[in-house]
């Protein structure tokens, strides 16, 4: 419990700062919405002349796309990008800082099992993620309600938002895994931003149609928001992959952490 509280305390400030920067981003995007919505009429007029098959090929429903949540789901990816970086930095830092700051021997000589140490650290990490997730999702909802004078379905909003947490957890798990294998991670921010941005660029390639088959490799592409808003729900296989990935990666990290030799500083 001490370790949990200690970790939570040392991460709280950065969790709040991350949440505030993501909120700022959300605010800017919400301010853009009105000018985005103006394009609806023009687009509909233009598309009225085309057969339904053509529209289907594009894979979206204009009514959904131009709705506040449709727009939000488009720009949401940049918020998810930031959140993923936060999550990976957090996962990586929690474990590796004991090695880089040479406090591992101090920690390991305390009468707590390694199992308890890593569990406390991981649950503190997840708690900080939940705190900033809650702040972002909660306050963005308030912004949406105040700034956009249309009714927005809370249920759909939550469906989109929950994917944020699922994707964050994947990068958190990757961060933990990197930290237990590499241990003395030289630049936590560098490796985290690098990895997440790498996946993001891969995602850009997937969505611009250059490499379509790689969708399974890119967490950012697991959830098709327009389909979710259209009432088609989540794609089950991607949800399963997501959750399994997190569970397996974390379990493997546990095993590695418990078995690894820890060198004194």
């Amino acid at each position, binding site marked *: 419990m001490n370790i949990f509280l200690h970790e939570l305390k040392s991460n709280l400030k950065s969790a709040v700062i991350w949440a505030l920067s993501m909120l700022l981003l959300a605010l800017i995007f919400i301010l853009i919405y009105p000018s*985005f919505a103006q394009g609806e009429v023009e687009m509909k007029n*233009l598309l009225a002349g085309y057969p339904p098959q053509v529209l289907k090929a594009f894979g979206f429903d204009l009514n959904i796309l131009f709705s506040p949540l449709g727009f939000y789901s488009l720009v949401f990816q940049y918020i998810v990008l930031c959140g993923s*970086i936060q999550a990976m930095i957090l996962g990586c830092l929690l474990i590796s800082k004991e090695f880089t700051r040479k406090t591992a021997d101090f920690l390991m000589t305390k009468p707590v099992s390694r199992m308890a140490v890593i569990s406390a650290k991981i649950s503190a990490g997840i708690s900080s993620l939940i705190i900033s997730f809650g702040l972002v999702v909660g306050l963005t909802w308030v912004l949406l309600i105040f700034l956009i004078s249309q009714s927005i379905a809370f249920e759909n909003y939550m469906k989109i938002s929950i994917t944020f947490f699922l994707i964050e957890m994947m990068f958190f798990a990757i961060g933990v895994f990197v930290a237990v294998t590499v241990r003395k991670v030289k630049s936590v*921010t560098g490796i985290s931003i690098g990895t997440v941005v790498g996946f993001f*660029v891969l995602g850009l390639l997937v969505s*611009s149609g*250059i*490499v379509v088959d790689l969708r399974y490799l890119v967490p950012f592409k697991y959830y098709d928001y327009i389909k979710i808003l259209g009432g088609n729900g989540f794609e089950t296989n991607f949800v399963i992959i997501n959750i399994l990935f997190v569970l397996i990666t974390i379990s493997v990290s546990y095993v590695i952490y418990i078995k690894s030799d820890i060198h004194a500083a």
Partner: protein
Amino acid sequence: MNIYLRELKANAKGLLFWLLGLIILIASGMGKFAGAGNSSQSVNAIMEAMPDVILAMFGMNGLDLDTIEGYYGVISFLVLIMAAIHSRMLGSVIIAKEERDKTSEFLFVRPVSRTSVVTSKILAALTNVVLFNFVSFFITWTMAETVAKGNSLSSDMLVMSVGILLIQLLFLFMGTCFASGLKKSGKASGITTGAALVGYIIYIISDMDERFHFLKALTPFKYFEPRNIVNGAGLETIYVTILLILTALFIIATYIFFQKRDLNT
């Protein structure tokens, strides 16, 4: 000279992987054009009616995807992002790695001045960056020749290469500057990536809505845009000047900071 050669060798493998990724990106992107090129008028008409927000997210604003020029513009933007990531990593790591690998004592007891060490390192990094630039030019040119014979791209490509080189130099020296100036040089990589990421998000936002156009002076990605070059506008003198001045400042700062640096050993 020894240091220069040593650095070239140390970076050769990394460069090779970057070039491989670059070749795959360009080849598959351009190959896609060969398959989809001149597909249908309707696709293009729909693209034109798309709201700026969506086009901005794919970097497709103001580009005609029915033509090889438009395709080239989209791919160039991805190449630009890759080039920026590559050069800023190179710049920060080439300086920071001596302290990271604890080889700085070894290096700085040699009878070479700090200035000549930095110069050799910078020259080695420049060689890498120029090679990256040249290969991307060459591959794109060959691909464009194969998929669309008799196109008018060659001169655009030269301008584009110059533009990409300017961005590469900016990020390269931003990296060396931070790595020399920061107390913990390992943080340079994270900070410059963060800067590039913020630049990218500002780029997207300023493209999405006219009210946010004023932000564009804040992001180097806006200084020279693939779409302007493809559409024949070329490089804007004022932005080229800003880029050159910034780069020069970073170079000077690198030398000053490095001269005064307290080496952590």
